[in-house]
Structure formats: C-alpha cells, structure tokens
C-alpha cells in the first residue's frame, strides 16, 4: 500500500485526510469528556458519598487527556 501511495503521489493526501478525520474524532471525544464531567458532577450532587471528590477528579483528568489528544492530533 505504501508503495502504491508513494508511486502515485497520494501519500500526503492520504495522511492529510487521516489527520482531519483524527482531529474531528478528538473534538467529538472532547465534547463527550465535557458531558462526562457534567454528569459526574450532577450524579455527585444527587448521591453524596465519601469518594465523589475522587470521581470528579477522575472526570477532570479524563477531560485533560482529551485536550492532550486534540493537541497530539494537531501535531501529527
């Protein structure tokens, strides 16, 4: 496949399209991570327990990683 793309000069197009696809996916994932943060916060308000703080913290760490994912996709 590599030879085929290089031979026809399609390599840069292929990786460009892949990068756009990855960026779009990572943006969607970021929105999903925001929803998770919102949901965990509302769950924690509904049922209050000792470890809710830890769970909220995890959701924020996840959000941080989703931002890292976007940055990685842009850096490709």
């Amino acid at each position: 496949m590599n030879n085929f793309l290089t031979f026809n000069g399609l390599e840069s197009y292929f990786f460009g399209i892949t990068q756009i696809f990855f960026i779009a996916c990572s943006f969607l994932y970021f929105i999903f991570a925001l929803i998770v943060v919102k949901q965990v916060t509302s769950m924690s308000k509904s049922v209050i327990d000792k470890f809710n703080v830890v769970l909220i913290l995890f959701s924020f760490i996840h959000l941080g990683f989703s931002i890292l994912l976007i940055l990685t996709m842009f850096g490709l």
Partner: protein
Amino acid sequence: MNRSKDLDNIAPDDEIVVSAPIKESPKETSPKKSESSDKKSNFSQTIYDILGHTKSPFSAFLIRPKILTFAERDENEEIYLAVRPHWINNLSWIIVSILMLFIPLFFKYITFLNFFPTQYQFAAVLFWYLITFIYVFEKFLSWYFNLFLVTNERVIDIDFNNLLNKHFAEADLSMIQDVSSSVRGVFGTFFNFGDVLIQTASEINQINFEKVPNPEKIIKLLKELRDLEEEKNNGGNNNE
C-alpha cells in the same frame, strides 16, 4: 412586710424574710420519652442483628451509612440500608477492560498499521486507552450510583443509565404490600445475590432491587419496618 431582701440595706426593724432556696428538680424524664428512646435503641439492635456491620464504602451492602446521603432526603430521614448490585456483576466488564488494556500490544502484528508513522500510532494508542478508561469509568459509575435505599420512611431506587438518564422511584413503607425475592443461576446461588421485588399501593406499582446481595436480609428488614409502621399506626389509632 418584706421591704428589702438585700441584707446590706435592711433597716433594724425590718422583718427578715428568707425565701427558701428553689430546689433544682432533676431533669424530668417523661416515661413516654424514655419508652420511645428504648424502642429506638431496641430497633437499632434489631437492625444490627438482621444485617450485621459493614465498613467499606465500596461495599455493595452498606448498613446505616454515615456519610452517604441523597438529594431527596428529608431532614429526619435515617438510612438503614444502602444496597448496590453485587460486585460479581462487575466481573464481565472488568474482564473486557483487562483485555482492552492488552489489545494495543497486538497492533504491531497488524501490517496495515505499520504503514502509518510513529506519531499516528502513538495518537491511536492514546485514543484507545482513553476509550478503555471511559469504558471502565462509565461502568463503575453505573454500578456505584445505582443505589437501592431503605430508610425509616420509604424505599428508594436510584438509577443512572448510560450516564445520561436518572431514574428515581420511591414508595412509603406504609404503602408496601408484598415483598418477594428470587435468587437465580449458579452465580446467584454461590454468591447469594438476587432480585427483591417490592409491590406497592402507590403510583409506582413495584420497585425492583436488582442483583442485590443478601435478599433474605432485605426482606427481613422490610418486614421489621412494616411491623413497626403498623404498630405506629395502631398506636395512633388507639390514642385517637
């Protein structure tokens, strides 16, 4: 003729009136009060006898949890029991998530992926691990916040489905009509968990505690609470 009580201001012809010190009566404990507190402590003992004790907050069977509470709780409402589905029900997603952790190790054997540069491969692996994490997190949250509560006033079922839907169902103890339980399958019998079905006379016909540990203990507790509720009602009717 007690013109003055202060000894320094007494005239010689004044009649001294010494008022008797007021006896401090010991705190009056009405028999009714002590009786009710006795009843309460007896009932607490009964709960401990039926349910036993739990310490871990991650337990699926929390007896009189001190910290756990919920938004719809009344001021004087006391939680006797908080139950989650038995932990063994988490086994399937735990196994899946462990497998998901190892999947990136096999990426190198897929020749098509080797065509991509290292940066792309790193991004793909990062994405994969984020998906794995959110899968585990979502499953854990669904288990952790899926609670069945028995309080001194009502039974409550709180469910969160797929993080986006909240389901809250409650029924007063006085509204409970029938309670039944079913333990099914090898795992259910081995680990002693099953469903507890509570039929009520309220708008919500039934509340189902699904896959909860020790269903027989829950039934016993509900029976005790219903008896207590009946006693209260009978007492109230007799007083009238």
